């Protein structure tokens, strides 16, 4: 059984979608400027939310500013609908906005995500909201905000290429496997949030509106639909969207991003789809992986409930 089964009822103790109207207007103005300047980080007056920083306070504020009562919300954490972060944010909006929820990607109108892009291609009319911890791609190279801001203004991104080059000099390849920097429409270098680099190509030319919220760092940025997003690389070391070289143990998919699950202390392990909805949809359609139970999905094949 999933948390979705116990539907919290909408409370009238809060304004619709928790935030007050003045705050939502401020966030909405930031989102619109972000849409007008794809990849540019718009400062906004992030509010304290009833959850700790690092739990997606930025994403929650963007979602709250976008939600309409008719929406159907999906929340994922590392691809999974049933992890603590996803469940608590989903219940938060069920209570404060009274919106319908779903785990089914194509049904959702707003998807808030932590660190994954769903495997099922998104469509027009959907909004994907990312939770972003560090929105500034240059932050670990240059700690001063005044300097990184100037570097973005001057389109001075040489330092980022030096960092990628040093990866190659040290490891023989670009060792960055997540949070892989991208360039938007040939102008702004942008932090894609800590999604695996496997997901980077999905950001480009996506039919959905992609919005990014960083609560602690007080930044919002955006990618309108069909925006060109290119992962930084070199001609002789082209970008590769890598993943574990295995099929999914449960659904047998060979083209989805996999999590490694340690089974015992004898070296036993399995690889399963990180996107739980994609995996269960495939299993319901009859795709059976090598390690799946032969009978149709039984509860005991899932991890500790």
């Amino acid at each position, binding site marked *: 059984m999933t948390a979705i089964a116990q539907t919290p009822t909408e409370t009238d103790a809060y*304004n*619709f*979608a928790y935030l007050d*109207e*003045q705050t*939502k*207007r*401020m966030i*909405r*103005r*930031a*989102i*619109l*400027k*972000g*849409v*007008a*300047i*794809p990849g*540019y980080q*718009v*400062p906004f007056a992030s509010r304290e939310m009833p959850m700790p920083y690092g739990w997606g306070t930025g994403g929650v504020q963007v979602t709250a*500013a*976008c*939600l*309409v*009562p008719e929406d159907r919300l999906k929340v994922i954490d590392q691809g999974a609908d049933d992890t603590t972060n996803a469940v608590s944010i989903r219940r938060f909006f069920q209570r404060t906005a009274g919106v319908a929820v779903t785990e089914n990607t194509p049904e959702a109108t707003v998807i808030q995500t932590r660190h994954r892009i769903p495997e099922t291609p998104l469509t*027009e009319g959907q909004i994907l909201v990312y939770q972003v911890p560090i929105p500034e791609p240059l932050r670990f190279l240059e700690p001063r905000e005044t300097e990184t*801001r*100037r570097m973005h*203004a*001057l389109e001075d991104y040489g330092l980022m290429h030096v960092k990628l080059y040093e990866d190659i000099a040290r490891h023989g390849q670009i060792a960055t496997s997540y949070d892989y920097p991208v360039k938007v*429409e040939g*102008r*702004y270098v942008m932090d894609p949030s800590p999604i695996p680099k496997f997901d980077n190509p999905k950001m480009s030319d996506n*039919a959905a*509106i992609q919005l990014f919220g960083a609560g602690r760092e007080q930044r919002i940025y*955006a*990618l*309108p*639909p*069909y*925006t*060109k997003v290119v992962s930084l690389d070199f001609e002789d070391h082209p970008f590769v969207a890598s993943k574990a070289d295995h099929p999914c143990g449960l659904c047998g998919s060979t083209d989805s991003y996999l999590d490694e699950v340690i089974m015992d202390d004898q070296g036993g392990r399995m690889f399963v789809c990180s996107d739980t909805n994609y995996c269960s949809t495939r299993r319901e359609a009859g795709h059976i992986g090598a390690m799946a139970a032969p009978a149709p999905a039984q509860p005991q094949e899932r991890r500790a409930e």
Partner: protein
Amino acid sequence: MNATALQGGFATPAHDSARAFRATLDALARPGTIQTVAGAQPPAPLSVAAGVLILTLTDGTTPVHLAGAWDCADVRDWITFQTGAPLVGPADAAFAVGAWNDLAPLDRFAIGTPDYPDRSATLIVECDALQAQGAQLTGSGIKDSARLSLPDAARVFAANHALFPLGLDFFFTAGDRLAGLPRSTKVEDN
């Protein structure tokens, strides 16, 4: 202040502004699409769509400039009562409302700074009609290309696009319909 200023706001502000914002977001994120909005009954000459935009986006922190015939007592009172937005000249405006000819010349408005390109004005341009035909639009938010009836020659909007990442963002309104044109959109004739 007269009584008309007290009327015509959102009946259910949280829900009405949420729906209005989604339409506004879609309009700006997909240039060339035309959205229909509802919920405001502003005094003439303010259109329903422009009224909805003002109620959804402006408050005491966003200076608004009214141009030409839109700078009348009814509209001033309505915006002041409904939103509390200060009414200012073009140079200080975060939002400006009016007919195209009254808003010109555009170089009076803030286009942002290289460090903060978001500190630029958004122009709400009242039009007689909006149609998905006319100038050709390409760029972010547009699959291949789109068309939109614009109030002026394409080169005016191309010049704005040439300032990217600086520049103005536009909403075109007619009746209860609105369309968006962000600075990222490339505009061409034919």
